[in-house]
């Protein structure tokens, strides 16, 4: 039987992208600045979020969405302990958050009483890069012990970034991490990317990152 060719040209991730657009609209209507924090497991995502929340001025109210592949609430509990609302999303084994999970998580966030939404993605350098969540900024935490070759090995996540945080800089004296080599890889993938070297442990560099975030939230507040 002869076949008919039907031209389509539709992005394979279109359904996720459309949903992400709806999420962005919800955030914008509520005057919320949303950030998507991605990193490999153990890079210090939760530590950085906790330190950031503690340093934010009191007029900026926040909430956190925690993505985890297992039904554990360790991260969310830490956030709630410092008085910030947190919603835990269990991805049921999936290696990333997608716009569907994000929408469900958003339903439980007190949208009318916050201005900053921090999303902690599942620890993974591959899959989260492909799923737009509708947040305003994609942020990656790279940590010194992971090694200086990560931009070369995981190019897609670096290309999707708005901000790069280099964590655990206090370990530089103990680890063979060639900062020049690392930065050249980043420059190739994402020229002039905003970068903050920090140490959550010593607090070094945290002020510059938090200042950037505060400015973004206040600009967003004023439309």
């Amino acid at each position, binding site marked *: *039987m*002869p*076949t*008919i*060719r*039907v*031209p*389509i*040209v*539709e*992005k*394979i*991730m*279109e*359904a*996720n992208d459309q949903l992400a657009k709806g999420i962005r609209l919800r955030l914008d209507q509520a005057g919320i600045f949303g950030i998507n924090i991605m990193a490999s497991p153990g890079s210090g995502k939760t530590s950085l979020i906790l330190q950031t929340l503690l340093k934010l001025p009191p007029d900026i109210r926040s909430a956190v969405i925690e993505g985890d592949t297992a039904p554990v609430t360790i991260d969310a509990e830490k956030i709630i302990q410092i008085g910030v609302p947190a919603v835990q999303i269990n991805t049921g084994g*999936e*290696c*990333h958050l*997608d716009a569907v999970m994000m929408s469900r998580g958003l339903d439980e966030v007190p949208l009318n009483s916050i201005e900053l939404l921090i999303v902690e993605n599942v620890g993974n350098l*591959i*899959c989260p890069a*492909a*799923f737009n969540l509708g947040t305003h900024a994609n942020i990656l935490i790279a940590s010194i012990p992971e090694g200086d070759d990560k931009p*070369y090995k995981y*190019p*897609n996540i670096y*290309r999707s970034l708005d901000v790069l945080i280099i964590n655990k800089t206090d370990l530089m004296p103990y680890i063979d991490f060639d900062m020049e080599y690392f930065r*050249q890889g980043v*420059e*190739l*993938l994402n*020229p002039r990317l905003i970068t903050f070297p920090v140490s959550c442990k010593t607090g070094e560099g945290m002020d510059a990152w938090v200042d950037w975030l505060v400015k973004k939230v206040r600009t967003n507040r004023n439309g």
Partner: protein
Amino acid sequence: MHELSVTENILNIASKHANQSKAIRVTDIHLVIGTLSSIIDDSVQFYWDILTKETICEGANLHFERVPAELLCLDCNLTYAIQSGLSPCPNCGSVRVNVVAGEEFWLESIEIET
């Protein structure tokens, strides 16, 4: 990476268009995938065979058109192909580059019987 969700998306898009065109069967699916998209063809095929059972797409052949990655140097305007990973401009050594091809990730067309 996440071939299962990708395959589900391909099936959803193909089925939607097949139904709109009043197809009785989908025979072929043409995908355009840039080499910078980390998708393993064999994994998509594996999920495809399972997911399409008893759907309008059952038995449809997947065709992957791979688009090679190409970079444009912002300093000397040279366009160059890359094999694996991003590399500086081979002409002037600049790292100020833009990706001009290789990120494609779409379903181009389907072939149907009506």
